[in-house]
């Protein structure tokens, strides 16, 4: 991103951001990462009836090096967690993670020692999708919400400032243990 960094943030950069966001969301290739029953619904979304190809997403890449989005579909066991992280690390940036279904999002009904209680313990998650398993429409809805997020992503110096602001906000935010009130 040499050009954008050299330029002052302004009109040109915002236009570039819009174009880049449009290009990124228009061909978001998911990595094949089905772990359990959610993967069946994920495959159904790619099929003829729901047809993710309408959003330029029909190619589920078997290689993480060609993928932009990791749809974690299913419960992640403790043994699978390092593999999940490795697949994520092998994906080239910019990359996004969609936690599909309650198991990937928070452990779901498997509140036990074998299952990671939410993949956000292992990788940063951009969008959480409830449902057990979510129907293909729910997955498409989550993907479209992620598309909106990607469209608004900043570039270059603006992105760095955004990351800094998010980091500092996360550092000052109270930990779950310190949260008082009705939230359990």
């Amino acid at each position, binding site marked *: 991103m040499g050009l954008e960094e050299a330029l002052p943030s302004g009109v040109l950069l915002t236009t570039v951001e819009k174009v880049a966001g449009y290009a990124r969301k228009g061909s978001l290739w998911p990595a094949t990462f089905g772990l359990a029953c959610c993967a069946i619904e994920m495959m159904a979304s790619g099929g003829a009836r729901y047809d993710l190809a309408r959003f330029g997403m029909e190619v589920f890449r078997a290689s993480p090096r060609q993928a932009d989005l990791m749809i974690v579909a299913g419960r992640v066991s403790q043994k699978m967690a390092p593999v999940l992280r490795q697949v994520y690390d092998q994906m080239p940036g910019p990359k996004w993670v969609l936690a599909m279904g*309650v198991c990937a999002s928070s452990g779901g009904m498997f509140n036990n020692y074998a299952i990671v209680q939410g993949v956000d313990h292992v990788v940063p998650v951009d969008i959480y999708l409830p449902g057990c398993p979510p129907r293909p429409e*729910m997955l498409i809805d*989550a993907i479209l919400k992620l598309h909106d997020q990607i469209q608004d992503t900043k570039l270059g110096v603006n992105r760095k400032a955004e990351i800094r602001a998010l980091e500092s906000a996360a550092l000052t935010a109270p930990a779950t243990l310190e949260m008082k009130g009705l939230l359990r």
Partner: protein
Amino acid sequence: MAELPQAVRGFGVTFATIFKKVVTEQYPEQAAKFPPKPRYHGRHQLNRWADGLEKCIGCELCAWACPADAIFVQGADNQEGDRHSPGERYGRVYQINYLRCIFCGLCIEACPTRALTMTNEFELADNNRADLIYEKQDLLTPLLPGMLAPPHEMVPGTTDTDYYANKITGAVPEQAVQVDAEQVAP
């Protein structure tokens, strides 16, 4: 007539497919054309009686029935001048964690007053975990015409049994006076 070569005959399938009906559901654009089935298990809702009082009595049976421990309920006693439901108790805190809920509907079966039912809404995805814990105000149904926002007393001359027998048809003016007085007082 000579047999067509296999390769050409294969295109017959492709050609015939042109005249078949398209099976693709244009989901976000024409979502209304493909609604879920009426009994689809979607987001929960907390219902009200015809006069606006909440049906939930804070008994926690839904939380006990939940196989995923997604529901948290804390009941409280209805006080004089602070009544949210007919009868003794109401649900003061009601939370459903949609990152645990598996939409099985066991909570709906457990509910003794039909306070908890399910809607067909399924577009729940969000970008953080805290917002997917739905609080009571997110789950309560909106007030319909003829309903008054609690807290207010029961319809004068009735008991909670009349409510459970579904004999209440709507809010009466006496209850409206109470609501107005409460809004003025603080």
